[in-house]
């Protein structure tokens, strides 16, 4: 039990997520419990509108939880200042960067902001980390391009490189494979896998690529209307939790093949 606590990078206990407005509070999901260890790649799956983005936003501290405790490195999320949190956690969102004229190098170097001085001057060390991020995502040749010149797949790699440049033990990605072709979806997820193995970073990503996520993730978070399950893909399959994920009339989960197939 004790050793588990030491290595737990992200721990969530009895979490309820949703939105509160003046009049009412609308619960999206409740009773979420999981603990992600160092160096793990975790895939978050579930149908549209089930609350994957809300969960990620809550974990990133962008919105308050309705109930429960989130801790990063065994310290409660609330007790971090925003700058301290920027040292622990970086994000890749579905939204494109606001400015399209940023060059790739400029964009990635913004990831160093939590560490730079008041005008954002980059030290030699900062530049070294930026180069490492470029290399890890294989975009060295793009470094002088502007964002509007990039394809969706290239832009996604740039956004991941920015998160890498922020040099945090934990990275959260909201649907990094959306809008990408089959090759790039596989490429991005394999890249995430490689990063967890080589750099020891902990990565939590949401995706609709359940087949790929089963093959690549160390653990998976499956959100269903009833509950949120957390385990390794193999035991989730054996529990039959993918069987009822979607209406069976159209697609069903093939336990042998470990993937969804069309129902004819």
């Amino acid at each position: 039990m004790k050793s588990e606590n030491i290595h737990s990078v992200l721990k969530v206990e009895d979490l309820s997520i949703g939105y509160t407005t003046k009049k009412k509070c609308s619960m999206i999901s409740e009773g979420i419990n999981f603990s992600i260890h160092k160096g793990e790649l975790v895939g978050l799956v579930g149908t549209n509108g089930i609350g994957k983005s809300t969960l990620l936003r809550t974990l990133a501290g962008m919105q308050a939880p309705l109930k429960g405790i989130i801790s990063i490195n065994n310290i409660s999320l609330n007790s971090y200042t925003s700058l301290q949190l920027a040292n622990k956690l970086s994000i890749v969102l579905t939204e494109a960067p606001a400015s399209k004229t940023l060059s790739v190098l400029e964009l990635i170097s913004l990831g160093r902001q939590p560490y730079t001085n008041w005008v954002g001057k980059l030290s030699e060390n900062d530049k070294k980390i930026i180069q490492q991020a470029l290399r890890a995502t294989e975009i060295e040749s793009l470094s002088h391009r502007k964002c509007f010149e990039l394809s969706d797949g290239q832009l996604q790699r740039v956004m991941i490189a920015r998160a890498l440049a922020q040099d945090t033990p934990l990275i959260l990605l909201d649907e990094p494979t959306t809008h990408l072709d089959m090759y790039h979806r596989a490429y991005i997820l394999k890249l995430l896998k490689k990063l967890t193995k080589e750099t020891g970073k902990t990565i939590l990503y949401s995706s609709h690529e359940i087949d790929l996520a089963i093959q690549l993730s160390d653990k998976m978070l499956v959100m269903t209307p009833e509950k949120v399950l957390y385990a390794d893909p193999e035991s989730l399959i054996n529990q039959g939790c993918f069987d009822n994920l979607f209406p069976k009339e159209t697609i069903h989960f093939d336990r042998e093949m470990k993937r969804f197939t069309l129902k004819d």
Partner: protein
Amino acid sequence: METTKTYQSYFIILVFLLVVSFVLNLSLGSVSIPLKEVFNILFGSETTKSSWQFILLDYRLPKAITAILAGSGLAVSGLLMQTLFRNPLAGPFVLGLSSGASLGVAILILGAGLFGGALGGLLLSSWSLIIASALGSFLVLLAVLSVTFKVKDTMAILIIGLMFGSVTAAVVSVLSYFSEAEQLQQFIFWSFGSLGNVSWEGVILLSLCCFIGIVLSFISVKPLNALLLGENYAKSMGLNMKKTVLLIIIATSLLAGGITAFAGPIAFVGMAVPHLTRQYFKTSNHLILLPAVLISGAILMLLCDTVAQLPFSEYTLPINAITSLLGAPVVIWLIVRKRKLLF
């Protein structure tokens, strides 16, 4: 923020252009003063005509300095607005800041009539003009911003800015309708925009406003760069959004409000200069853009003012008309050439 090249040569050219347009602005006007004499007077040497000395030191020099301050200040506030609202259309004029400043001044000038005589005169000092105008633009910006927190769509925010602009314009119309001809004339002349009516005392006040505004802008360089990624990313990198927004608002209202108080509402400089500068510098890094926009704004304003003087004639055109006449075609040309206005 790592930029890919050095910009020294660009800045040397800009500073050179600034000096040239400054001297040009000083020597041209209804009375043409030879360049040599301009230098003589500026550096305190003997001059052949004392009237030239008077024209240069008491009229053209404060006017040129006002032009520099107004051009730089408006351009910087445009840059801040475009990044804060993440929209290429933003600028002090479009977002209703200038109209807000107008409202402040209108209430002051047109309202002063109600108090009459001595009190009216007291109300119309430079200080009260600046305060009224900065307060006007501050309130409009605050109103636009409070809506921003509810409405996330930047296009909607611009439309709301325009609406605020037209509401303040309407209030100004109502005020004008009920005011005396004398006050109305004073207000209308103010609204044409003029760089020439600023005394040395006013120039010092305006410099103070612009100085604080520009210092606050430089303090905001890093947050402004973070905002290029959008609000969510900026926050995730540890940015204190409330403090940043407040700093930018104060800087913009001091710049736009102060300048509008002295020189009247001046269109297009705030929106066009940041775009022109981005075109040539090809960077989004505010550490480079901010000084570049500062100098370019000054150059553009000096040139506009030189044209407005209609050299060798006794007429002076309203500066507001000239900036629009020159600015609008430039913006149209930019968009048509690039087929899009990327921010």
